């Protein structure tokens, strides 16, 4: 997953805020995963933007944390679980 890769959620998966559960949840056929704060913050930004843009936006929202490594680890796990769709980008770096 390079910095220019565009990341979105897999077809059939939907992320939404559920007030009744005070949490983001991932919805998929006949199932639901309740997300904790960080997971919700990351996945809600998986809307087709590049990995670099995602990290930059998160860093801006949470300036006191150094979160690049954690975010990449999380996204790689989510990808392994089949939650994400990624398109490879041209990496300038």
């Amino acid at each position, binding site marked *: 997953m390079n910095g220019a890769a565009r990341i979105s959620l897999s077809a059939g998966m939907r992320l939404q805020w559920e*007030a*009744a*559960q005070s949490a983001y949840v991932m919805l*998929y*056929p006949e199932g639901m*995963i309740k997300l904790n704060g*960080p*997971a919700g913050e990351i996945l809600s930004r998986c809307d087709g933007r590049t990995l670099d843009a995602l990290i930059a936006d998160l860093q801006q929202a949470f300036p006191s944390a150094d979160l690049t490594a*954690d975010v990449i680890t999380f996204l790689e796990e989510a990808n392994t679980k*089949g939650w994400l769709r990624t398109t490879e980008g041209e990496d300038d770096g």
Partner: protein
Amino acid sequence: MASVESQVTPAADATPIPLWLLAEVTYRCPLQCAYCSNPIAFARYRNELETDEWLSVLDQARAMGAVQLGISGGEPLLRKDLETIVGHARELGFYSNLLTSGVGLDEARLGELKRAGLDHIQISFQADSSGPSDEIAGGHHFSTKERMAQAIKAHDYPMVFNVVMHRRNLDRVDSILQLAWDLGADYVELANTQYHGWAYHNRAALMPTREQIRRAEAITQRWREKAGNRMQIYFVGSDYYDETAKPCMNGWGTTFLGVAPDGRAMPCHGAAELPIELPSVRDERLQAIWEDSHAFNVFRGHDWQPEPCRSCELLHSCHGGCRCQALLLAGDAWATDPVCPKSPLHEQVVREVDAADERKNEFPLVMRTVKNSRSLS
């Protein structure tokens, strides 16, 4: 840092939310599957909820926090207002799942359902080819199902291919998986029959041998290795054979809320056949039903549990097994599910399975027809 919690289970100390709403919009069905878990008395359900009544159910459930909606039956496609119900569900923010035989579907309807915002479609198959499929389901619907399965994919839905497995089709599992593969199924669910409703009535005909299940599992495992990520295969065992009681609804009155075609609210799929009064959405608000009704409280929590469940280390994950099964097998909906090896009546289940092993003559199927429903109830 960022980890996720598991699936549709509530926190132990929270007020339970009915996260999963099952709308059984009709018990009418063009198929006659002998393994159906609908009540034997389905032909008595004449007084179906109207469209606006279903929309009100959706409104009320969503307001309580329900988020997964199953639309089922009978055959939900028989409701002309299905697209209206789906559209309203989408507006409310439900994730909608249509559980269908595919009979009554066509390209036009599929397009409308997609535009209405339907999220997911599960299509049932009964066998790998028309002969055995017609024997199990009645009629001649196999080629419709094949066409509709492909159409579902063409409309950008994942194709979820569901087959109820039993004595008459377990030996065909290789061809069934081949069919799913050839049609491009993304997910296959091979669900061994649960013995409720019509399936319980037909259990002598439907219960497989232990060897049939073992062979089918081995073939399924070889397919999994072949199919990899392209086709995910789930094999759901039968609790009679696995000797592990299934945790009823993840805990009675904690997660699941069903509404029958006539508006009766059900804490579990089989609740209409339990000796408890079911409240109706026509008479009461859903929140009052969920929180205060006898039906939703009678088996909620663990205070009502008998021994050996009360002292069992699995109490909070098993919940004493299935109430409907306790009624069917022990004659007592409050009893420990006899499927559990700790039940004093467990031998009864073992004997049923032994009988299936030894059975030489094939029992005829009593098909799920209105005529049979009337004469049996």
